């Protein structure tokens, strides 16, 4: 009897040990639909990044909407995959976001992703995996003869030692999109759509990728924006950018979309 109990005990601890090393999946719940798009999912998103920061899979569910009303601080990540299958929505209230940015003396990125071996992968469905920043109203608010209003956040800093960004899709970014730091990063099939509905509302500073990293490859980028598609900054070494389409479609969004569809078919 004692030996039987012992065997069961050893078996149980073996199972526990196995579970603790298996990849963990953190699927993020959304309150978007139940709240008619008003609830903030930032706390749930932050929790998932904290819970799965070591060897985890962080999953935004396919086609699900998420509000991310607060910046995400996800540092010290190791061996993490981020599956961006949902659609994210930044705040549509400019003034509270501006207040947050202006209160900080440092640059604010909405997504702070830092660590080693980090892989961000967007949905294969062209309709999903978008980060919607609602930049149009920010562009509309450009002061006359100015180059963008004060208090604009940057979208993302991706500071990793080893990793990838695949199918990141940014719609109407407020300003700067993704800053790349670290090394050994593969960036592919990304879309930045910073096309303004109005000629007089120019999307200032909507750089797609700012590179300050080593050993970076960018392929199949589609960037229609109001600043650099790729800006090579101090500390950029061994950067290869190829097979990309960049520019700005000044004849309306329909032609832009026709071109995007052509690029991806």
């Amino acid at each position, binding site marked *: 009897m004692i030996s039987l109990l012992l065997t069961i005990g050893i078996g149980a601890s073996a199972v526990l040990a196995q579970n603790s090393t298996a990849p963990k999946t953190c699927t993020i719940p959304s309150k978007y639909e139940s709240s008619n798009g008003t609830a903030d999912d930032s706390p749930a998103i932050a929790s998932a990044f904290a819970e799965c920061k070591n060897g985890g899979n962080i999953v935004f569910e396919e086609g699900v909407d998420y509000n991310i009303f607060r910046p995400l601080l996800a540092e010290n990540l190791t061996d993490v995959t981020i599956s961006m299958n949902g659609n994210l929505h930044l705040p549509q209230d400019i003034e509270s976001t501006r207040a947050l940015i202006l209160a900080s003396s440092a640059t604010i990125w909405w997504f702070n992703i830092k660590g080693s071996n980090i892989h961000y992968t967007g949905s294969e469905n062209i309709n999903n995996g978008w980060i919607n920043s609602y930049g149009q109203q920010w562009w509309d608010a450009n002061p006359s*003869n100015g*180059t963008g209003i004060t208090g604009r956040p940057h979208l993302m800093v991706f500071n990793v030692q080893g990793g990838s960004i695949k199918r990141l899709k940014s719609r109407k970014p407020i300003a700067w999109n993704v800053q790349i730091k670290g090394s050994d990063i593969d960036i592919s099939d990304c879309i930045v759509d910073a096309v303004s509905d109005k000629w007089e509302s*120019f999307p*200032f500073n909507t750089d797609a990728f700012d590179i300050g990293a080593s050993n970076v490859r960018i392929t199949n980028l589609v960037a*229609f*924006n*109001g*600043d*650099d*598609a*790729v*800006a*090579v*900054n*101090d*500390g*950029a*070494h*061994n*950067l*290869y*950018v*190829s*097979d*990309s*389409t*960049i*520019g*700005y*479609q*000044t004849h309306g969004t329909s*032609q832009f979309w026709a*071109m995007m569809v*052509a*690029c991806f078919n």
Partner: protein
Amino acid sequence: MFQLTFPVGLSIGSLGKSQGKFANVSNIHFDRITVAGGLYAARLKSWVGGQGLVENVTWVSVISCHADIRMSTNNLTVSFDLSLEQHMDMEQCRHMTPEKGQPSTEKHTTNPD
């Protein structure tokens, strides 16, 4: 008003904004890029009084549509103006996909040092 803030494509910099810091960029290669609109396809931007080194930068097979495609520098003590001429007519632009574009055979490498 918008002339200086059009999309400028593939840019080195801007570099040297912090004058006390030595900016360093090396081994940058752009290949098979289609530029649909925008002011410049390729550009190197630096600040007056800045210091640094940019070495081994290559733009190859850059196709322009709408854009006045050329490389320009901004506030550089050493200036250069290379042309990557590959204009397409408007009709081609309307029906352009990356696959249809004919890559330029021109290649320019800059070694400012």
